[in-house]
């Protein structure tokens, strides 16, 4: 069973991720009164990127990007195989460090500042992500996802604050306005392309694919709040995930980008207010 889930994740996650990315671009375009690209466009883009000539400043960048991809896939596989959720989140952070290295190893000013902002973004997300793990532990007495999905009730009933905090930092993780600090899906930001400025050809394709894996992983955590023993919870979880995704697209199209300092303030404020209060309540109720 575990092997099956791992293989399903390995194969389906990039496909679903790319498809969601294409739908995202199409809906965004319609919100802007444009026609938008075809839904399969992200796949065409990645295909084109692999065909381009790779020009890198140093060869270590390729190694670092491959490590980033491998660690991200590893995290997702761990998550889907039912392993310890907190371990998953730590490996996730480690993967982010490799992206930072890949950006700063080039010595380009935009890439360097983008890398710094990437670390800063991680710092903003970490509390909410870790607290999510803690919240599940307090509820189910385990970090293991395999056991959490067998719970009697959906976790969200008892963990609404954690859910709200996680949803808030999802905007940061998915690189959407107002928190698309280190790099963005749109051009024109002050750092040109930030962390991905010096990535090209196959390295950029690897970045893109890793983003798809990461998005699916983040959405899976959202789904984890909903899934329980009842098989009907799975379609319900999918609906909630799609609604959350649509909300992210809407937020992206209705906000300007905030400055990094503000992002830190807001994300920690929401985390402490929502997740922190929920945590206190859980501890008291036990």
């Amino acid at each position, binding site marked *: 069973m575990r092997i099956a889930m791992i293989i399903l994740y390995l194969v389906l996650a990039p496909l679903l991720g790319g498809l969601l990315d294409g739908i995202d671009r199409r809906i965004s375009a319609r*919100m*802007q*009164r*444009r026609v938008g690209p075809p839904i399969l466009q992200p796949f065409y883009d990645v295909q084109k990127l692999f065909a381009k000539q790779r020009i890198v400043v140093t060869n270590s960048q390729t190694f670092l990007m491959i490590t980033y991809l491998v660690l991200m896939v590893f995290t997702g596989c761990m998550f889907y195989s039912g392993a310890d959720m907190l371990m998953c989140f730590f490996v996730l952070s480690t993967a982010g460090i490799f992206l930072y290295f890949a950006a700063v190893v080039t010595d380009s*000013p*935009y890439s*360097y*500042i983008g890398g*710094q902002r990437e670390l800063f973004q991680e710092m903003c997300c970490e509390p909410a992500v870790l607290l999510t793990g803690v919240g599940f532990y307090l509820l189910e007495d385990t970090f293991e996802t395999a056991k959490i999905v067998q719970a009697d009730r959906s976790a969200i009933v008892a963990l609404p604050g954690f859910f709200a905090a996680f949803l808030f930092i999802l905007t940061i993780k998915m690189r959407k*306005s*107002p928190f*698309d600090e280190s790099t*963005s899906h*749109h*051009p*024109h*930001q*002050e750092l*040109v392309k930030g962390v991905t400025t010096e990535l090209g050809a196959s390295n950029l394709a690897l970045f893109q694919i890793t983003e798809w894996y990461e998005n699916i992983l983040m959405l899976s955590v959202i789904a984890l709040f909903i899934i329980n023993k009842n098989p009907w919870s799975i379609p319900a979880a999918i609906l909630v995930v799609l609604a959350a995704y649509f909300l992210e697209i809407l937020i992206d*199209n*209705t*906000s*300007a*980008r*905030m*400055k*990094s300092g*503000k992002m830190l303030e807001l994300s920690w404020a929401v985390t402490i207010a929502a997740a922190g209060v929920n945590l206190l309540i859980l501890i008291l109720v036990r």
Partner: protein
Amino acid sequence: MEEREKKRSVVPFGPQHPVLPEPIHLDLVLEDEKVVDVIPSIGFIHRGLEDLVKKRDFNEYVYVAERTCGICSFGHGLGYVEAVEKCMNVEVPIRAKYLRTIWSEMSRIHSHLLWAGLMADAFGFENLFYQCWRLREKNLDLVEMTTGGRLIYSVNKVGGVLKDITPDMQKVILNNLSELEAELRDVYKTFMTDYSVQERTRGVGVLTKEQVHDLGCCGPYARASGVARDIRQLGYEAYGELDFEPVVSNDGDNYARCDVRLREVFQSIDLIRQAIAKIPNGELSVPVKGNPDGEAFIRIEQPRGEAIYYVEGNGTKFLNRFRLRTPTFANIPGMCETMKGCSYADIPLLVVTIDPCISCTER
């Protein structure tokens, strides 16, 4: 207290940068993400247009003057033609003056909407950027209907205008402007009240009234700091017969500049309505005989501020000298002043907020 040695890096901003509308180069010296010093350099788009007066006769030069810049194009054609008319003592018919005023205001609407879009883009709000430019397309359709071109109007000539705005066209203009105004209210509301936009614009790039006076800034950049100066009040063309007040704000930050420019769009729509209601019948142009001889010097209010046009003729059909002082040139010192001590994320906004038109500045 110990002085920590912070690592300084130099970020080359421009001339190619996605957020810049036109090429300007700034060497930004950063400590972490704080800008410590700014070293600007220009000259990437100098084309030697002022020298061309010696090779194109004064009638033909209108077409060159118009093409100094794509955004302020009508203003440049108008300023040049007015300067030559003043030099040759030509009195333009009244209908031509009204037509020029209408086109001038349409040019202002298009320029401010373009700027609003760039500003939205600079603070990362792409949706607002596209909506502003979609509204600008409505304006450009009107311009294309009346003059034949979207950005380069080619309707000015020494002595008057070349084309007329018929009563049918006037009706279409009024309808379309009403639609534009209705949609613009929503955009204006977003610029002024949205939380994330306010985070990026309030308190950023503050210039006080005294600084504006000392640095010589002009146009909406100065009016946002409380200086109520609008060159249209001099009454050139038909402005003397229209009723308006300069749009002023007192805060002097980016938020105030957004406010001033967007309110000026509403003011321009109102001015076009007044002009269309009052436009008299008459000729479009008067024949011009002879060659310009002597000097003339006029000022007009471009969308970006006060532009000064100077021509000197020597009795032949080629002018001796044509000099244009653009508003952006006057505003660049203000921009450099606001950049000192700001954070890196504010740089694109501070550049875009002066509404830079480097192609006019460098000709």
